[in-house]
C-alpha cells in the first residue's frame, strides 16, 4: 500500500493514524507498563525484605545443610552443603522422571494398541483402564499407592519374602545388592561400549537393508556385544563380585538395596497416569493411518504384528510424537507432586526443606522454576528436531 489514496482538500490525515506509528506507540506503552509493574514489585519487595529483616543472596548455597535425605544417587550427609542437596534433589527428579517416561511409554503403547484389539475383552479392559485412570486426580493416585498400598504392607518382621532374597514390607522393597570388587568399572565400561557398538551395528544393518532390500539378522550380534563383552571382561580380568544380602536386624533390614516406598508410589502413579494419556494418543495416531495401508500390508502377506510394526506404527509416529512430547513434559512437571509423600525430589528437598530452613523464598523458588523451565525448553527443542526428522518428506 504505497499509493496514498486521493483525499478531498481540507481533510488532513493525522500522522497518528499510520499503523506503524500506532503500533510503535502501543508497544512503547506496553514496555513502559511492564517496566512500571516490575519496578513497583521490586520496590515493595525490597521494602518488605527490609521490614522483615530477611537475608538475601545466594550465600546459603555453601552452608551446611544439617539434614539427611532418604534416597540419594550421589553420597550425601548432614555435613554437605545446600548446593549438594539441590543436586541430589535434581538428580532424584530426573531419575524418577526418566524411569517414569520409559514405563509410561511402554504401558501406554500396550494399552493404546490393546484398545484397538479385535479381542472384545482386551479392548474393553484397556478402555476401562484409560477412563478410570484419566478421570482421577494424579495426587489422589499417588496418595492411594502410598497410603493404601505400599505403607499398608506388613512391618519388616512379617515381610513378604520372594525366594528369601527379596523382601517386601512397609519400609519398601529390599533386594540383594551386587558389589563389584576391583575392576568393576571396567565391566560397566565394556557394557557401555557394547551398547554403543550394538547401536552402530543396527544402524549399518538398516542402511544395508535399505540399499539391498535384504533383511540382516542383527540380534545375535547385538546380544553378543551387549552381554558378551562385559562377561568376557569380567572373566578375563577376574573381577570379584559379592552379593550383599539383606538381613533382618531388630526392626528393619540391614544391607542389600532398599527401594523406598515413596519412590515406588510416585513411579507407579506417574507411569500409570501418563500411560493412560499416551494410550489415547497412540490410539488416535493409529486410527489416523488410512485403512488402506493396513489392508495393503496384509495383502502382501505380512503378519498382524509385522503390519503394526513395519507399516502402521512408523506412519502413526508422525501424529503421535508432538502430543507425546507434551505428555513427557507433563510427567516431569508432575513428578514435583513427590513433595506430598516426601520423596526427595527437587521441589521436596530444595523448595521444601531448604526453603523452610533458610527462608529465602525468592532465590529458591526462582531457581526451582528456572530449572523446570530449562528442562521443558531442552526437551521441546530435542523433540522438535526429532519431529522434523520423521516428518513426511513430500517430494
Amino acid at each position, binding site marked *: 500500500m504505497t499509493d496514498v489514496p486521493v483525499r478531498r482538500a481540507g481533510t488532513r490525515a*493525522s500522522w*497518528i*493514524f499510520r499503523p506503524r506509528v500506532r*503500533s510503535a506507540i*502501543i*508497544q512503547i506503552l*506496553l*514496555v513502559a507498563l*511492564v517496566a512500571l509493574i516490575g519496578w513497583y*514489585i521490586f520496590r*515493595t*519487595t525490597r*521494602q*518488605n*525484605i527490609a521490614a522483615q529483616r530477611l537475608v538475601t543472596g545466594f550465600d546459603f548455597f555453601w552452608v551446611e545443610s544439617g539434614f539427611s535425605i532418604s534416597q540419594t544417587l550421589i553420597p550425601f550427609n548432614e555435613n554437605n552443603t545446600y548446593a549438594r542437596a539441590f543436586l541430589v534433589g535434581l538428580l532424584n527428579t530426573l531419575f524418577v522422571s526418566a524411569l517414569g517416561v520409559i514405563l509410561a511409554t511402554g504401558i501406554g503403547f500396550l494399552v493404546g494398541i490393546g484398545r484397538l*484389539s*479385535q*479381542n*472384545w*475383552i*482386551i479392548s474393553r*479392559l484397556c478402555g476401562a483402564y484409560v*477412563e*478410570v485412570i*484419566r*478421570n*482421577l*486426580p*494424579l*495426587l*489422589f493416585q499417588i*496418595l*492411594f499407592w502410598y*497410603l*493404601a498400598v505400599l505403607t*499398608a504392607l506388613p512391618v519388616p518382621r512379617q515381610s513378604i519374602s520372594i525366594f528369601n532374597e527379596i523382601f517386601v514390607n512397609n519400609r519398601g522393597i529390599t533386594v540383594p545388592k551386587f558389589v563389584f570388587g576391583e575392576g568393576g568399572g571396567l565391566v560397566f565400561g565394556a557394557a557401555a561400549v557394547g551398547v554403543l557398538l550394538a547401536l552402530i551395528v543396527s544402524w549399518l544393518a538398516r542402511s544395508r537393508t535399505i540399499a539391498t532390500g535384504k533383511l540382516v539378522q542383527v540380534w545375535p550380534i547385538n546380544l553378543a556385544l551387549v552381554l558378551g563383552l562385559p562377561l568376557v571382561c569380567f572373566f578375563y580380568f577376574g573381577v570379584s563380585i559379592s552379593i550383599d544380602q539383606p538381613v533382618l536386624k531388630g526392626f528393619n533390614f540391614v544391607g542389600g538395596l532398599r527401594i523406598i516406598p515413596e519412590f515406588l508410589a510416585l513411579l507407579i502413579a506417574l507411569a500409570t497416569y501418563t500411560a493412560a494419556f499416551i494410550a489415547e494418543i497412540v490410539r488416535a495416531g493409529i486410527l489416523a493411518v488410512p485403512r488402506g495401508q493396513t489392508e495393503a500390508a496384509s495383502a502382501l502377506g505380512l503378519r498382524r504384528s509385522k503390519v503394526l510394526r513395519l507399516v502402521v506404527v512408523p506412519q502413526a509416529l508422525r501424529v503421535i510424537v508432538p502430543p507425546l512430547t507434551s505428555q513427557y513434559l507433563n510427567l516431569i*512437571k*508432575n513428578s*514435583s*507432586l513427590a*513433595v*506430598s509423600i516426601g520423596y526427595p525430589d527437587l*521441589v521436596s528437598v530444595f*523448595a521444601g526443606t531448604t*526453603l523452610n530452613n533458610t527462608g529465602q*523464598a*525468592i532465590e529458591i*523458588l526462582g531457581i*526451582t*522454576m528456572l530449572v*523446570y*523451565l530449562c528442562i*521443558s*525448553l531442552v526437551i521441546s527443542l530435542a523433540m522438535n528436531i526429532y519431529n522434523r526428522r520423521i516428518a513426511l518428506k513430500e517430494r
Partner: protein
Amino acid sequence: MSAAFVREQTLPPRAAPFAATGAKAWVMQRLFATPRDIAMTVIGFAAFVLIAMPLIRFLFLDAVWRGENRDACAHVLTGACWPFVAAKFNQFIYGFYPLDQLWRPNIVFALGAVLLVPLAIPSAPLKRLNALLFFVVYPVVSFVLLTGGNLNPEHFILGYVIRLEDHVDFVWHGMRAAFWLDYAFSSLALSLAVALIGRVFGTPISTALKVMVGFFALLALLIAPTDADFGLSWVETREWGGLLVTLVVAVTGIVAALPIGILLALGRRSEMRLVRWASVAFIEFWRGVPLITVLFFATYMLPLFLPGGANIERLVRALIGVALFSGAYMAEVVRGGLAAVPKGQYESAAALGLGYWQTMLLIILPQALTNVIPGIVNNFIGLFKDTTLVQIVAILDLLGQIRSAFSDPNWASPTTLYTGFAFAGAIYFAFCFAMSRYSLFLERRAGASQLRMETNRT
C-alpha cells in the same frame, strides 16, 4: 528371478465358514479367533474378576452401613465403613464452614447447577443472557454469599489524595458515601482524561465518554453488592474446605482464565513484535513450571511482592496463582480456535471497515470461542483434578479434608482409609467422567455440523 513354486492344480474348496453373523460368530471372532485370542480372553476375564469381585464386595456386600463410631467397623476387614463417610459428610463437602450458615454454600451450589445446566445444553434458549449470568453475576453473588460481603473499601483513586471520610460520614446499608463519592469523581476524571487522549487519536469525545462511563457504571454494579451490608456474617476462607474449596478453586480458575487467556492469545497472534514476545514469554513461563511451584510462589513470594501481601488470605493467594497458571493454558486453547477461523473472515471484516477490536469482538472471537468449547471443558477437567494440589499449601480441599479425617481416632478402623479413598475417587470420577463425556458430545456435534456444511457445499 525364477519362481520357486508354481501350483499346477486347483486347490479343493475350503469348508464354508462356521458363521459370519450373529452372536455365535461374534463370540468366535471377538473372543476365540485364534489360540492366542483364547489365551488373552481367559487372562482378561480372570483379571476382570480379580479386580471387580473384591471391589463389589468391598463397596456393597461386606460393607458396614450403620454405626456411631469405630466400633461398628472395627471387626470388618474386607468391607467399606460407610458410617465414617456419613459422620464426616458435612466436613467433606463444606470443610469447617459454620454449621448454621450452611444454607449459603447450598444456595451457591444450587444456583450454579441451575445456571450451568441450560448453559451446557446447546439447544437451550437465551444463551447470551445465561452466559452473562453465569460468568459475571454468579461469581459476584457467590462471593457475597460465601464470604458475607460487606467489604467496605476505603478509597478508590482520588480518596488516597483527598480524605473524604473526614468530611462525609453518611452510610447507607453498609455502603459509605465517602467511598462512592470518591468512586464517582475518580471515574469521571478518568473518563475525561481518556476521552481527551482519545481525541488526539481521532475518537470523538462523546463516544469515548459513553464507553468509559458505561464501563465504570458496570464496574460499580459489580462492586456495590460486595460493599453493601446484607446482614450476612463474615466467614473467613480459612473455615472453608472440602468440595466447596475444590469447586471454588476450579470455577474461579476457569472464569478468571478466560479473559486472561483471550488477551494472551490475541497478543500472541499480534503483528506487534513486542506484544507477541511478551505474550509468548508469559505463556511459556507458566506452562513450563509445575503447578506446585506456582502455588509455592503464591504462598511464599506473592506476600513479598505486594504491599500488605501477608494480609491477603491464603486461599485468595492460591487463587491468584491458579488463575495465572490456567490463563496460560487457556491462551493456547483459544489460540487454536483463532487459528481455525478462516482468513476470509478477517478480510471481510476489514472490507467492512471494522477496526481491530470490532473485528475481534464481533466477528472472530465469537466463532473462535464456540469452536473451542470442548477444549475449554477439557482444560476445566485438568484444572478440576489439579485443585487437589492446594492441600500441599495447607488448604483443605475435598481430598485434603478426607485425608485429614483418617487420623481421627474415633474412626480408626481397618478400612477407614480405603473407604475414604473410595468416596473421594467416586466424587472425582463422577465429575471428570461426566465432563469428559460432555466434551466428547460437543466434539461429535461440531464434527457432524462440519460434515453437514461440507456436504452442503458440494
